[in-house]
């Protein structure tokens, strides 16, 4: 049954909004709603309207993982109480005080308040920046002309991830610039003798952008990977929300809170890996029906051993597609890989990479045989063939020499212009 004398408000405030926070609590008290504690949100209890004065301070010795006042905070609250401020509740580095004496001395100076708040806020941003730096490294790796680049540029799923990484880095930089601009303005207001400096830091837009980006990323990734990925992502999100709700309700100490979060993250990562791997493997199994391969060894010769193993993988993106086929027989094998794209620069990168990969072997020009833009093979019978809009990598048993007839069959089967 709903308790009419108690309400929970989920209203986020950052360390840069301590004065807005205090003003909000005073407004609520004037309406008869008195802040009681933190629970699943800000918990208010109904009472007589009161002109109460609150002070919201950033306690720099507090921990980001504190869900309730620890010994340090309680010790600090004794000092504050002696100065005319009673601690109502504390969470993270936030301490909420209510004025109990009209002659109460300000807890800290305005300059100290600004320093404490910016220090705590900057610490949060630093973690975000560390993650962004790691991701910048990942983006650079994606765009180096390696196999990873080929995988990324010709896979919509990887492009969505890369786009999100780029967004995250830009978002972090943007947010830091916003913070620096806010700090400059706050300092100006401080030197101008204004009070309530910790205000005018509305982050609704930033939070909105972050939520929209995660939503778009989920939809984009879901479209490219399948609905199961959206379900998995939403499942993880829900699990974290339930955990967050439970922890905020139970309010364990900082060590327990951190421990539970780490343990939960490890377990969840393990579950995600297992679920993703089994779904990807099941999907792969479906795709690896060799009867649907465009070309098998029997198309080129009659003397083929028993088929032992097959593998197929493919991906496509807005830039083109790639298909990899592998067939292992008792004594032979056949591997072919096709990259199709209308973008010359992508083909150039793939071609250079494949070329460098095969450089150690002695290349033999076979452009005429394939009627291609460029083609060569090496002594282990790996063929590298480039057409205007495709590259073919073809590898088979070293005793097998391709003739014009074979090439014609291959090109017809793979839809290459020979």
């Amino acid at each position, binding site marked *: 049954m709903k308790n009419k004398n108690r309400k929970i408000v989920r209203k986020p405030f950052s360390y840069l909004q301590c004065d807005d926070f205090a003003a909000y609590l005073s407004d609520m008290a004037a309406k008869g709603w008195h802040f009681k504690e933190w629970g699943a949100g800000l918990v208010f209890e109904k009472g007589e309207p009161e002109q109460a004065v609150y002070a919201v301070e950033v306690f720099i010795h507090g921990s980001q993982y504190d869900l309730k006042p620890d010994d340090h905070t309680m010790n*600090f609250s004794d*000092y504050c109480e002696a*100065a005319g401020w009673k601690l109502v509740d504390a969470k993270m580095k936030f301490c909420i005080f209510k004025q109990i004496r009209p002659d109460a*001395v300000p*807890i800290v100076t305005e300059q*100290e308040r600004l*320093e404490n708040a910016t220090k705590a806020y900057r610490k949060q941003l630093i973690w975000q920046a560390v993650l962004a730096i790691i991701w910048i490294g990942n983006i650079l790796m994606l765009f180096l002309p390696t196999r990873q680049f080929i995988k990324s540029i010709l896979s919509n799923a990887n492009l969505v991830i890369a786009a999100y990484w780029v967004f995250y880095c830009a978002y972090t930089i943007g947010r830091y610039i916003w913070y620096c601009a806010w700090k400059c303005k706050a300092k100006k207001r401080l030197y101008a003798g204004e009070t309530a400096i910790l205000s005018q830091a509305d982050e609704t837009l930033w939070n909105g952008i972050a939520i929209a980006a995660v939503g778009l990323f989920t939809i984009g990734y879901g479209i490219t990977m399948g609905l199961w990925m959206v379900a998995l992502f939403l499942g993880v999100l829900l699990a974290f929300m339930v955990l967050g709700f439970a922890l905020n309700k139970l309010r364990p100490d900082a060590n327990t809170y951190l421990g539970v979060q780490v343990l939960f993250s490890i377990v969840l990562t393990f579950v995600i890996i297992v679920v993703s791997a089994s779904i990807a493997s099941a999907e792969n199994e479906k795709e690896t029906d060799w009867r649907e391969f465009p070309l098998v060894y029997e198309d080129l010769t009659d003397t083929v051993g028993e088929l032992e193993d097959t593998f197929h993988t493919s991906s496509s993106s807005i830039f083109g597609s790639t298909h990899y086929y592998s067939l292992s027989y008792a004594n032979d094998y056949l591997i072919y890989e096709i990259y199709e794209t209308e973008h010359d620069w992508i083909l150039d990168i793939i071609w250079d990479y494949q070329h460098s990969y095969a450089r150690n072997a002695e290349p033999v020009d076979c452009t005429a045989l394939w009627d291609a833009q460029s083609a060569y093979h090496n002594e282990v019978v790996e063929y590298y063939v480039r057409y205007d809009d495709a590259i073919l990598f073809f590898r088979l048993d070293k005793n097998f020499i391709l003739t014009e007839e074979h090439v014609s069959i291959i090109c017809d089967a793979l839809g290459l212009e020979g």
Partner: protein
Amino acid sequence: MAREQLQTLTEPMYYILLALTEECCGVDIMERVKVLSHGRVTVGPGTLYAMLAKFEEKGIIRPTVFTTRRKSYIITDIGRKELEKEYARLKTLTADGAFYFEK
């Protein structure tokens, strides 16, 4: 806030150290500072808490009684030297000023 190297002491710092020439509970320091400065200087509890932590870290004061909730402090020899240095500096300043203002 406290100046980084404690080369000179701010007013609140000076009075906090003066207050701690006698053993004093952290919470009571605010009142003692007010008395010592004849009501002219008030130190906020947040400012005091941060300064005590800094002084303790630098070995300028030391805790005498230490329970979970209550801590008493007293100035150390290093702290006393800092305070004497500051007192001497302030005396020099007033003496120099006296040359012009008390002719």
